[in-house]
């Protein structure tokens, strides 16, 4: 391999890793909801869109850096998620219907309402947050003068990636070390047993939907400095989260993190070596392959190796 080829390969890996970290954060939110509720939240991308609008308006009106608006958007989305669960999904859970998964269909409706409300209120204009550091980057040759190859590391991408890591670590701490977190996991593992053990299952459901929404809200704030925003953007990210959830093993957080990284790196690799037009194809090849060869997702592999849930 010549130096140029090594450069392309390394640059692709860096890009894939950074993208994968962000994907993971989107995927974890859906995974938590999936784990506890046993439903796929198809309004996931739209929730992210709502958070991005919050970050956008905070920047446009008060010049608040999108990374700081994580502290606003994530709590707001948490409350929105709790509200959705309490007032929309719980009532539907109680109703007997011909369709066993009518809550899933409900989430589709919620997503449509959110997207169309955004179109009504904010028009379908593309928007972005033109922060000063948008195209700032670190260069290998700036630190090592005679480096045979040039690599660059984007500043906003790296910051987003680091924050995603921190949030994931905090989430892990919450789920494994606190009582409430343990109750959430207990509900996910066995609803009836948790109920018998005195866990307030309904509250855990609200909490986990709120948590899932809050996580994707944070992801929205991390995405806006490197991407852009329009009302119809949700669907694409719902799809990505869905693939990651399947790939990671339904309901496993560690699985979702690994699934996100795999998807990010795989997409970048297909983009470089097969062409970027193939990236969506690659995404679905992974999706189908995971369903056929690894129905339990990455989580089932982890369980076999006794690496915990």
């Amino acid at each position, binding site marked *: 391999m010549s130096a140029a080829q090594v450069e392309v390969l390394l640059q692709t890996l860096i890009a894939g890793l950074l993208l994968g970290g962000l994907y993971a954060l989107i995927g974890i939110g859906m995974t938590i909801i999936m784990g506890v509720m046993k439903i796929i939240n198809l309004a996931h991308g739209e929730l992210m869109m709502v958070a991005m609008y919050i970050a956008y308006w905070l920047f446009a009106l008060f010049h608040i850096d999108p990374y700081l608006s994580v502290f606003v958007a994530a709590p707001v989305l948490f409350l929105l998620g709790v509200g959705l669960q309490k007032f929309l999904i719980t009532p539907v859970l109680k109703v007997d219907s011909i369709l066993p998964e009518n809550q899933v269909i409900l989430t589709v409706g919620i997503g449509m309402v959110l997207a169309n409300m955004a179109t009504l209120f904010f028009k379908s204009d593309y928007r972005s947050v033109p922060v000063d550091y948008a*195209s700032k980057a670190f260069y290998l040759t700036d630190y090592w003068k005679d480096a045979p190859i040039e690599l660059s590391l984007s500043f906003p991408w790296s910051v987003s990636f680091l924050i995603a890591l921190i949030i994931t670590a905090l989430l892990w701490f919450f789920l494994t070390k606190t009582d409430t977190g343990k109750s959430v996991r207990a509900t996910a593992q066995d609803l009836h047993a948790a109920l018998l053990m005195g866990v307030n299952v309904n509250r855990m459901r609200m909490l986990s939907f709120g948590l899932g929404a809050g996580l994707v809200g944070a992801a929205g704030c991390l995405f806006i400095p490197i991407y852009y925003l*329009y009302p119809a953007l949700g669907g694409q990210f719902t799809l990505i989260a869905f693939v990651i959830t399947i790939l990671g093993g339904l309901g496993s957080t560690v699985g979702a993190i690994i699934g996100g990284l795999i998807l990010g790196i795989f997409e970048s690799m297909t983009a*470089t070596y097969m062409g*970027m037009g193939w990236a969506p194809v690659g995404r679905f090849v992974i999706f189908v392959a995971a369903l056929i060869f690894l129905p339990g997702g990455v989580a089932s592999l982890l369980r076999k190796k006794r690496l915990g849930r």
Partner: protein
Amino acid sequence: MKRFSLVMALAFLLSLAVAGAYAAEPLTLIIPLPLTGSQAKFGEMEKRSYEIAKDEINAKGGIKGRKVILEFEDSQGKPEISRAIAEKVIDVKKQPVIFGDYSSSSSKAIAAVAEERKVPYLVVTGAADDITQQKYKYVFRMNPSNAYYASGLMSFLKEVVKPKSIAIVYESSDFGTSGAEDMVKQAGRSGMKVLVKEKYEKGAVDFKPILSKVKAANPDVIYMVSYVMDAALLMRQIKELRIDAKLFAGGAAGFALPEFVDNAKDASEYVVTATLWSPQVKYPGAKEFAEKYKKLYGDYPSYHGAEAYSALYIIKNAIERAKSMKPEDIRAAMKATNMTTAFGPVKFEDKEGYQNQNFMDTLVLQVIKGNHETIWPLKYASQKYVYPIPKWRERR
């Protein structure tokens, strides 16, 4: 009592007289446009422009004395919905002429319906070459086809940059693909080697993988066919990777919009782009339209706005010259169109494999100090071009 009824009668007569200012019934025209979905931004801009034209026309007595009423149908940028709208407009509403919609794929869907029903259709923005290469008799196109979008840019390349190699990055839509194919042909004709030709799915987040491939190939020119936000992301990531080509060129669409500069910021500096129209261009009515639009909506329109604005005038012109309101007569009048609009000269010709196609000069813009300036052809230039452009490392 008698006096009251007399007053009533008078009022009635008066109202008749007012209505009579527009002889006969008003003329309702239905226009399909993407008003929701990802192309809604352009749909919105065109809607505003059609309305500016409508108000001007109505203020001067309408079309053949009939007041014009415009109705907009949302095609969502989906060809199947555009098709359904076209069928409704032609079969149910019996509208004798149809025009509008935004994307190439939607325009193509409407063109097929119009040709089948023998109703003239004016394509306003759809640029894919084959729309007017199907031997359709009833389909007219006012905008140059994709193959000609870049003709101005090609002459700039040939006379100023003289590149030996080129990399092409394009969106995997109808518009992007045909733009890229044409560039490959033109590059072949002028002896440029195509080193990389890569497409991407619209809405992609990360372009760095293909851009690092482009960087490794080291082309003289990087040519991109993209919509506005992808365009901004591409330039931002090109800056991040410090890819130093001699010239960064965009094929119309996204690169020509003011939002491109707003979003890409300093990464957009010195990028050149082919375009069909700019607010400073010297066609009669162009500047007035641009200023009117800016006054109403706070921003200059892109060429899409000028196309929509002029489209209504082309329709007016054709209907006024037509012998009757029958589709056949309007078609004949359209075919004989020879006028200058705010968008430029319009004349529908059959040549080079096209039918009913308008051929015109295209312009080249360059972002200089954060503004789009016309730099080519020199006779229309508002500023001297900047070439060679500085390397990323030397920019401050």
